[in-house]
């Protein structure tokens, strides 16, 4: 039988299963691109404004978080958007493709559905091909929708299509790379993790490369993100760099096919090792289990946040010089005057890291829900374990993780800042500043816990609250977002130390509120039925 038999059928099937999800991704990314254009046109009506804001980004931290800086000497609105915000859209496109391919290949295989499919008149290569074709369709849609949305927002159509083609090229690269990773790893989670790590590496390598040299160094060109940014969309357009993305995508896909042709269904290339035959004596309580299940995630997040802090902190030395000529409205965001620029910068980065710690908190509380939905909760609650005790055990691990993460982020920032400014006091100050966010992040966890107890189906609303709150809190003054809704996020009620003084009142108030909201969630969970999927 032809190894590709049934591919067309599977493509239709994959597209049907993604008929809600993929349009959301594509429209979301396209709309965001158009939104940046429209909002920045309002925020910075003339070239002078753009030039001064572009100057603000012209430092290592700014370059790390933006692009190679084409056209930033005399920026047009669209070149500014491409350089400053293109990176985020690229990362989003990368994630869209990673999740898509894992979902349709290893994810299906791991839960046994591929076995059913392959038992029909379907060739060995068909599921992989269908996933790649689905990715191709999604990325093509991204070019069309992204190009159209930006053109509608008033930029040159040719440039808009090239800019959007950059998303699609990076997307396809990661679709093919993920396809390969999925053939090697036995489990979907591992595959997602590895592919995301590759995306993270691409992000860092591109950043470092562009910091080394304006408009990109040789290091930049090692990263697929750079290939999309090097099209110089809206400045001096060229399509050449995208050929690299397509070429490497083809190589990765070919390698994935080679593995598919050789391996057993369900197997990876790396066989799993046997583990313990008896549990460690400590694994005797729901708390111990929750800690055991989350220790890897806490360690990963902790390392990531410590490194992020170290990176931000090490930039503080050069902040004062490079930011001296900032436009007035940016200065407001950073503390109001050149005298406390460093404190303002550290306050802002602390806020960002507290936001990241909130993301961990939400994911950690979300485990309660996945334990319930998967039915793993049932054998546990059928023992002498009370519901409130079980939930409180999970939340305690969340709380521990939050404190550890914030302390590590503060430590990283402090060490970086102390090394770069020569002021040892920065270590203690930064740790203290980040720990100031503990009650707020616990507040986020509390809201998540209350949703889990009261309306588990609406759990993901907590994301909206926190992400929107973060956008208001960090970009609000620039993008002109309505601010009142951001007040719902606990993060926006913390003083940004070290810029602002510690406020014991709001600290205590947040702790009390978090405790009350958590208690409501616990009480509700004791009263409701368990729901398994």
């Amino acid at each position, binding site marked *: 039988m032809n190894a590709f038999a049934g591919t067309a059928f599977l493509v239709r099937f994959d597209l049907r299963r993604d008929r809600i999800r993929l349009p959301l991704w594509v429209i979301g990314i396209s709309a965001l691109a158009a939104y940046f254009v429209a909002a920045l046109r309002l925020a910075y009506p003339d070239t002078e404004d753009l030039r001064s804001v572009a100057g603000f980004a012209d430092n290592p931290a700014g370059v790390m978080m933006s692009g190679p800086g084409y056209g930033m000497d005399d920026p047009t609105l669209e070149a500014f958007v491409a350089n400053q915000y293109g990176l985020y859209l690229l990362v989003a496109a990368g994630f869209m493709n990673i999740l898509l391919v894992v979902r349709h290949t290893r994810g299906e295989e791991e839960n046994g559905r591929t076995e059913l499919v392959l038992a029909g008149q379907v060739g060995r290569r068909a599921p992989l091909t269908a996933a790649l074709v689905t990715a191709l369709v999604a990325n093509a849609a991204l070019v069309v929708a992204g190009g159209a949305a930006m053109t509608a927002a008033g930029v040159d159509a040719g440039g808009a299509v090239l800019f959007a083609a950059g998303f699609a090229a990076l997307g396809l690269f990661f679709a093919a790379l993920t396809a390969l990773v999925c053939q090697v790893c036995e*489990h979907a*989670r591992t595959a997602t993790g590895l592919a995301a790590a590759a995306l993270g590496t691409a992000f860092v390598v591109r950043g470092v490369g562009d910091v080394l040299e304006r408009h990109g160094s040789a290091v930049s060109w090692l990263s697929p993100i750079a290939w999309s940014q090097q099209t110089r969309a809206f400045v001096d357009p060229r399509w050449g760099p995208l050929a690299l993305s397509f070429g490497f995508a083809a190589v990765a896909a070919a390698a994935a096919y080679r593995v598919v042709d050789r391996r057993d269904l369900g197997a990876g290339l790396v066989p*799993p090792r*046997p*583990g*313990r*035959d*008896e*549990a*460690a004596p400590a*694994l*005797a*309580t*729901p708390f111990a*289990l929750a800690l*055991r*299940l989350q220790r*890897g995630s806490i360690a990963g997040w902790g390392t990531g946040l410590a490194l992020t802090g170290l990176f931000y902190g090490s930039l503080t030395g050069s902040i004062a010089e490079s930011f001296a000529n900032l436009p007035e409205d940016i200065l407001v965001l950073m503390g109001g005057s050149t005298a406390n620029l460093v404190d303002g910068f550290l306050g802002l980065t602390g806020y960002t890291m507290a936001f990241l710690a909130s993301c961990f908190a939400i994911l950690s509380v979300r485990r309660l829900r996945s334990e319930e939905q*998967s*039915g*793993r909760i*049932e*054998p*546990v*609650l*059928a*023992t*002498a*374990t*009370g*519901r409130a005790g079980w939930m409180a055990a999970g939340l305690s691990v969340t709380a521990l993780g939050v404190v550890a993460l914030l302390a590590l982020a503060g430590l990283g920032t402090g060490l970086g800042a102390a090394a770069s400014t020569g002021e040892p006091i920065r270590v203690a100050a930064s740790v203290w500043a980040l720990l100031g966010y503990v009650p707020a992040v616990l507040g986020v966890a509390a809201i998540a816990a209350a949703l889990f107890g009261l309306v588990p189906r609406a759990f993901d609303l907590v994301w909206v609250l926190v992400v929107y709150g973060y956008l208001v809190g960090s970009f609000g003054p620039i993008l002109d977002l309505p601010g009142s809704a951001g007040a719902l996020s606990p993060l926006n009620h913390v003083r940004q130390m070290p810029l602002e003084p510690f406020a014991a009142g709001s600290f205590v108030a947040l702790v009390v509120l978090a405790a009350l909201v958590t208690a409501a969630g616990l009480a509700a969970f004791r*009263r409701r*039925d*368990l729901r398994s999927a």
Partner: protein
Amino acid sequence: MNTIVEVHDLTKTFGATTALDGLSFQVGRGEVAGFLGPNGAGKSTTIRILLGLLRADGGSATVLGFDPWRDAVELHRHLAYVPGEVNLWPSLTGGEAIDFLCRLRGGADRARRTELVERFELDPRKKCRAYSKGNRQKVALISALASDVDLLVLDEPTSGLDPLMERVFQDCVAEATQRGSSVLLSSHILAEVEKLCDTVTIIRDGRTVESGSLAQLRHLTRSTITVRTDLDASGLAQVEGVHELRNEHGHTVFEVDNGHLEEVVRRLAEYGVRSLESAPPSLEELFLRHYGSDRQVAGVGGGR
């Protein structure tokens, strides 16, 4: 107290769906009680209510003298539960999951745990994510059987086990009752219930349709008689209590209501009996009588 599970007029709805509609039954101490019904009859819902995982909308349920919703934790010290669909933590090994669940219940018999792992031929060093459905079920069974409890609640416990492991399971249940445990076991496999259970409750659409000991239930049903006679025995069809008389390979085969057996045997002698076989009523027939008439027998495999 000789009744350890007492369910009376239990009701439960999920939105527009009625899962339980006035269910009643009892389980006596030391009994192996079977809970029989097709898929969707409400077996798992009932068990989840008995464990306090779901809250009944109406009626009453008492387990070991406890209200399962109010006194869930206290009740759970005395029972062990094996869910129908066992899901485990992918990153734990099977051995870790067994020990963890045992410890939450208050400890287990170490020697028995080791013995059960061997008898069920489980590799406890594998990660749970690598286990098949049957192996996940073994993990839950080992953890339940290794604990000393008053009541074992087993929801379709053998649905993933092969016939050899089913035998091991049956032996283990027998040993558990010898230790003094009672067992409540749900199943849609008649052969299993017939082999294991002292009493059976048959449920359908959330209601009890038949309840009692196997002997009592058999009394309500028919035996199958296969005879070879010198004379044509088709006249027997006229006798009261005889049903579905037919000729198969020179034998006369018919069903007879157990209440009319005596009369039928007397009349049979008139035809000159050469050979006679009588098959006792199986639970399967009992089951088909309740499900087969006005609805397709969904999910009733009739044993494996």
